[in-house]
């Protein structure tokens, strides 16, 4: 068996090497997470061994509170992402296709964008209390920019000949947007949504953490303040895995949806 494997590895090193080495890397990480606390390099009270974290994870899975928190996180993330996408697309098309509007809004947008989204935490708490809506405000604010800027780039990139053609056929504004602008900006929208998905998840969990709206982030704070360290790490692990799933999922979805687009086709080769 080993010889067969070895020859295969040698025959196509480029294909298997990243996978094998990556798996070995993850395995090493897991072993380190288990051994470092057990032999006492860090205090196991602060950093329990992996086996304990995984046990705590199993306990989480059996708790209904965990599943309701998990649901809240996913719901808040999806809702925020959807609203930010809709707003970003509408505003982006409007600002990029009406030049005066774009010029007028430029300074305001350039001022609003760098404001750290968490600066809005106290305002969100005052307006909505410690509810999901407070976190939703943060999620929308932070992820809106990703979509908005991609859409604006996209509209500027629309073939001017296509627009002129639409004009000479006397297509209405709405038809032009639907038939000419929208098809050519979809790749940009998809990239914007991919970027926004990661940002929205981070802000969703941040909001739960800082504001205390229902979700995984809130459970992390509760676990930490009650000294349930293993339970806290298991929840952090869930948050990280959720992040990995969102990143990989969004990238895969982008490639599937844009298989026809030049950027993906050249990437594959």
């Amino acid at each position, binding site marked *: 068996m080993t010889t067969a494997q070895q020859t295969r590895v040698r025959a196509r090193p480029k294909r298997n*090497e*990243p996978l*094998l*080495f*990556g*798996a*070995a*890397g*993850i395995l*090493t*990480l897991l072993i380190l997470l288990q051994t470092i606390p057990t032999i006492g390099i*860090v205090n196991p009270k*602060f*950093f329990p061994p992996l086996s304990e974290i995984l046990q705590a994870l199993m306990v989480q899975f059996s708790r209904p509170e965990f599943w309701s928190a998990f649901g809240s996180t996913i719901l808040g993330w999806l809702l925020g992402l959807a609203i930010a996408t809709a707003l970003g697309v509408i505003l982006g098309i409007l600002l990029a296709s009406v030049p005066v509007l774009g*010029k*007028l*809004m*430029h*300074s*305001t947008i*350039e*001022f*609003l964008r*760098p*404001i*750290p*989204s*968490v*600066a*809005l*935490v*106290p*305002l969100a*708490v*005052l*307006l909505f209390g410690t509810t999901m809506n407070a976190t939703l405000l943060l999620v929308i604010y932070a992820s809106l920019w990703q979509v908005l800027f991609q859409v604006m780039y996209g509209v500027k990139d629309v073939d001017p000949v296509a627009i002129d053609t639409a004009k000479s056929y006397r297509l209405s504004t709405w038809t032009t947007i639907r038939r000419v602008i929208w098809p050519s900006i979809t790749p940009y929208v998809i990239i914007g949504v991919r970027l926004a998905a990661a940002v929205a*998840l*981070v802000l969703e*969990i*941040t909001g739960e*953490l*800082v504001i205390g709206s229902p979700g995984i*982030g809130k459970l*992390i*704070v509760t676990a*930490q303040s009650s000294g349930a*360290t293993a339970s*806290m*790490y298991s929840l*952090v692990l869930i*948050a*990280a*895995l*959720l*992040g*990995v799933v*969102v*990143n990989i999922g969004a990238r895969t979805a982008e490639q599937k949806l844009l298989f026809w687009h030049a950027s993906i086709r050249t990437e594959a080769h």
Partner: protein
Amino acid sequence: MTLASLGKKLFYVFAVPIVIVIFWIVWADSAKSPFWPSPVVIAKVFPATWLDGRIQEDVVPSLIRFLTGYLGALILGVMLGMIIGSIRRLRYFLEPTLEFFRAIPPPVLVPIVMLFAGIGDGMKVIVIIFGCIWPILLNTIEGVRGIDGVQLDTARSYRINGWRRTVKIILPSASPQIFIGARQALSIGLIMMVISEMFAATNGIGFNIVQFQRLFALPEMWSGIILLGVIGVCANALFRLIEGRVLTWYFNMQVKEK
């Protein structure tokens, strides 16, 4: 004519902000909502809130924590990234693990680091480093990986090795990609600064804003939000300035290619 074009430019920059502020003033005066104090009131409390004493006790410490953490992440991230990026097998070995760490929402680290480092300045700097380092590290790796092979071969045949190779060839070639990571890290760093102070602190901008909110001192709270906005805008402008200086050659090259 130039005066007219200047006027036009100024009009485009200031028209909407002025309209928003006027609208806000009129609306706040008529609605008298405690949540949305008039900008006039906010402007009045701003100097007393931030410039009297708080600038040394809260604003400067916040900024120092941010800068220490950000620069720490930058140095660490670029150094590690150059090492990992130049050794192919090491990169394969570490890439999935690093992607996993990158996917952890950085604010989640605040309660963890609090366990180890308490609630002092050390905790905040560690949290900022931990949040900022991933985009810098991964982009540096990507930048080093993408260096033109011909360039490296040329360097080899001229016997440019070791330190000179690193500083003169690898670092400049990877720098556009490093700047992409550094830009992402900039906003993460500011967020981490505020969050770590909101969570557990005895001073700092984030700490004060939350205090104002709890005391229902709303104009002061708003002044804090605006201060954070101004810091964000300034940090971004400074970053662009440095990027423009360092990457002039790169931007020029891009223009020529077009």
